[in-house]
């Protein structure tokens, strides 16, 4: 094959580059809850008239479980804005969240088997 060949990378130059770009997300400097794109969110209450419209919309959407990514998509709001709204709702216990199952150092074989079983039904 005459195509170019990939060369193994040595180290990430960005990690030692003092002029690397700083990346800032969102416009809220406050504390955020640790929310993943696939943290599942469920409402614990119906919206009261005092809740702001975006948060009321979240409470209505999350009567059934929904991931943070889906909330962001349905509301057409950036991820960081949604996490900021969810942080307030979590603090006031209007929603509950369930963190995703993440890859561990040693893969969880029973989890992988459950995923394979589900995929085979497709």
């Amino acid at each position, binding site marked *: 094959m005459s195509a170019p060949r990939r060369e*193994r990378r040595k180290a990430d130059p960005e990690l030692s580059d*003092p002029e690397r770009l700083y*990346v800032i997300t969102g416009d809220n400097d406050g504390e955020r809850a640790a929310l993943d794109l696939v943290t599942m969110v469920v409402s614990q209450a119906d919206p009261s008239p005092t809740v702001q419209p975006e948060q009321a*919309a979240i409470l209505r959407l999350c009567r059934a479980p929904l991931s943070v990514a*889906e909330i*962001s998509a349905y509301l057409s709001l950036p991820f960081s804005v949604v996490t900021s709204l969810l942080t307030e709702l979590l603090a006031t216990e209007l929603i509950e969240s*369930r963190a*995703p199952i993440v890859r561990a150092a040693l893969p*969880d074989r029973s989890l992988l088997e459950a*995923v394979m079983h589900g995929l085979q039904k497709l």
Partner: protein
Amino acid sequence: MDFRSSDTITGPRSEDVLPTTATAAVKVVIVGGFGVGKTTMVGSVSEIRPLTTEETMTQAGVGVDDNVGVESKTATTVAMDFGRISLSDELILYLFGTPGQERFWFLWNGLFEGALGAVVLIDTRRLQVSFDVIGRLEERGVPFVVAVNTFPDAPHHPVEALRNALDLPDEVPIIDCDARLRASSRDVLLTLMRYLHSLAVPLG
């Protein structure tokens, strides 16, 4: 911020509403260059019409030019398409098709670290666009498989030639697929899961 009235927000269709038992989520990331078929693959296996989440990135240039005191900032919006597969009443798999450009990866902290693994989707006509992605995954220790999206007019290379060109160890699976087909995309995900499962067996 421009926010639509909550009356106009369209939530999931009634058939897309998850059962209340659906509380365990896992994710897989599909990476590849522009136009390689990431969104096609997400769409072919997803039970919902693919959705789009976005993030706004503000880049502040620090100490990179002479105009001291003048902050240069540019905002970029990056969109990511995703889909969903209910694996059981409790377990949900989310698939994210992420832009190949590495600078966008910072946007979603934990996107790769938290994922079970990744699929690197490649087009043999433009193999080079996947070099950087593969290097990044290796550096971050994210296990991945390589899926060759078989475009009709793309050259077909033997797997070993591809393995050599991509400089991949023998154990990393390389498979052909047609991202438009649900069964084919499902098989790519199954290959990834079997590979992850094999990593759980102690080497001896």
